[in-house]
């Protein structure tokens, strides 16, 4: 059974990626899980300068999911390169740096710094964070700014460039194509959807930031549709995510056109999720007579089945 997948120049031993923002930079996760379970890991969204994040409360449960308004709390690219990447690289698992710039120039600067660190195998251009005032989702809904942000990173970074897209884009196909034209070798989707919750006792929004990003099983149908559309619009591989909490979910995303899969909120609830999903995927493939997991990608729409 061949679980290996390719994202541009990047070879993953299995299709599971720890999604950005639910894994920090790996140290906390390593207390309860094994980083080697993953085919690759995506770091917390990292900015040029340190960010303290948004005022609490930052998370709350919603039907079959959750809202978060972390606000890209991170120590900044310099500290990440100095303190986090050396530790994380010891596991031999490809490292994807999730980069969040407020301007095209900031994207370029982060990329240039990452270029000097060979342990960073890929950059995931985050043009889809709903929890910051500048940059983030504002970039991700417009194909032109997706193109420019991708270009900015592509020019300064010679290894794999991934672009993380928002389901809020008017046309997923257009933003996915813009990323491809900008030089991306893969696209990730989806980032969270913007939502909110209100506390009926205090009569105020639950989240300190008022709105937050919705994730978890509640968003899975939206995510699946986005993967389905993007996969048919571009020729680069898709990293599918949004509500994957079981191997059955994982199979659905592969069939919709994803080549790799990221585990987000599901990992917050069950740190052993990758082990369970990999086991389920292997059993499914052997039942279905499939030797290479990559052969599942896009089966739901590919012609000639």
């Amino acid at each position, binding site marked *: 059974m061949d679980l290996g997948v390719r994202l541009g120049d990047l070879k993953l031993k299995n299709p599971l990626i720890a999604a950005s*923002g*639910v*894994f*920090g*930079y790996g*140290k*906390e*996760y*390593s*207390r*309860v899980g094994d980083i080697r379970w993953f085919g690759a890991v995506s770091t*917390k969204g990292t900015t040029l300068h*340190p*960010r*303290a*994040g*948004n*005022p*609490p*409360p*930052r*998370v*709350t*449960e919603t*039907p*079959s*999911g*959750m809202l*978060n308004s*972390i606000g890209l*709390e*991170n*120590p*900044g690219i310099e*500290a*990440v390169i*100095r*303190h*986090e990447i*050396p*530790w994380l690289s010891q596991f031999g698992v490809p490292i994807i740096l999730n980069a969040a710039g407020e301007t095209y120039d900031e994207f370029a600067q982060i990329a240039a710094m990452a270029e000097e660190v060979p342990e960073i195998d890929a950059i995931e251009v985050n043009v889809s964070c709903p929890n910051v005032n500048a940059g983030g989702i504002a970039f991700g809904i417009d194909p032109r700014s997706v193109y420019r942000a991708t270009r900015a990173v592509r020019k300064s970074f010679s290894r794999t460039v991934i672009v993380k897209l928002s389901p809020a884009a008017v046309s997923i196909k257009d933003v996915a194509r813009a990323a491809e034209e900008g030089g991306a070798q893969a696209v990730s989707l989806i980032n969270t959807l913007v939502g909110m919750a209100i506390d009926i006792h205090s009569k105020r929004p*639950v989240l300190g930031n008022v709105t937050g990003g919705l994730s*978890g*099983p509640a968003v899975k149908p939206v995510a699946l549709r986005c993967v389905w559309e993007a996969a048919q619009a571009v020729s680069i591989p898709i990293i599918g995510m949004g509500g994957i*909490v079981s191997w059955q979910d994982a199979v659905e995303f592969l069939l919709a056109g994803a080549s790799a899969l990221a585990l987000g*909120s599901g*990992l*917050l*609830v*069950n*740190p*052993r999720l990758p082990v369970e999903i990999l086991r389920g995927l292997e059993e499914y493939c052997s039942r279905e007579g499939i030797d290479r997991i990559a052969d599942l990608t896009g089966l739901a729409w590919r012609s000639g089945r």
Partner: protein
Amino acid sequence: MSQDGCLGPDAGEPRPVLIDAEVLSNEAISHALYETVFRAPELALKARPAQFIGVKVSTGRDPFLRRPFSIARVDRNRGTVGILWARVGYGTELMSRWRPGETVNLLGPLGNGFRPRRFKHLILVAGGTGIAPMPFVCAESLKENPAASVTLLYGAKDKNSMYPVHRLMQETPWLAVQVSTEDGSYGKKGLVTGLLEDCLTRVLSQNREGDCDASSTFVSARKNPGDAGDTRNEASGPGILVFACGPKGMLSAVKAITTSAKIPLYVSLEERMACGLGLCRGCAVRRARGFKLEDPLDPVGQLGTGGSYPGWSSSRVGDSYFHVCLDGPVFSAEDVDLEG
């Protein structure tokens, strides 16, 4: 082990475990409180007072996130762990229907915990469901100070919603317990802060008759959380230590009292959580203004974890928040902003 952030995350601490635990009993013990006991031997061995567990209320997608609950009691011989909880919403409503024999997935122990080291008088202040960690804290309170005295001050709404305190007095006979209720239906009428003021007056006057002034010696040696229980304090002799758990408003009132009496206070905080593991950065709590971590690797004596504001945490760099699941839930009160 270096200070460049490459220190392993455990720093000698036991790792949390993910286990399927059998519900041994689940019952309402007052109008406001339920008690659940799980068979969870691995957890029982690892747990420290004031740590918590992440409870997956039911299998499946809804409710989605784990719910955090303090570890209320531990029986290492029988391999059991208990939680004390209030029915406040969707998840706890479902928990009230658990039957003995059911299996529930638990993650823990989580958080730093509280293991007081050097003190002469330990005063525990609990308000409402803030009673939850106290049975475990009481049971282990004399581990390192067999000659100390321990007082529990407990404030509840009324008699019917109280934790049955006679149980505590049976289990921990050395414990002095004082209760207040808002309507006066049990103990003293009023708030638990009233009990605290009375108690401090009493203990301080006893101390003044003795050979030391605990209030000043204990505090003058403190600089940052790493110093709370370090050897300077040991040398400075006996002292009063307060540990409080309850609603934020109560903690803030307790802090006002202990600050003016110059007595060290530790508080157990709650914040909405998603993972309980430090993965999501969801459980932020604002640091007190002017807080400076002088040496991030300094061991924190009173918390008993050998590094409770861990130097390895990436949250350390240039931010203004702690994270309750990672740095707490127990904090030195002067380090955190309790007003927000």
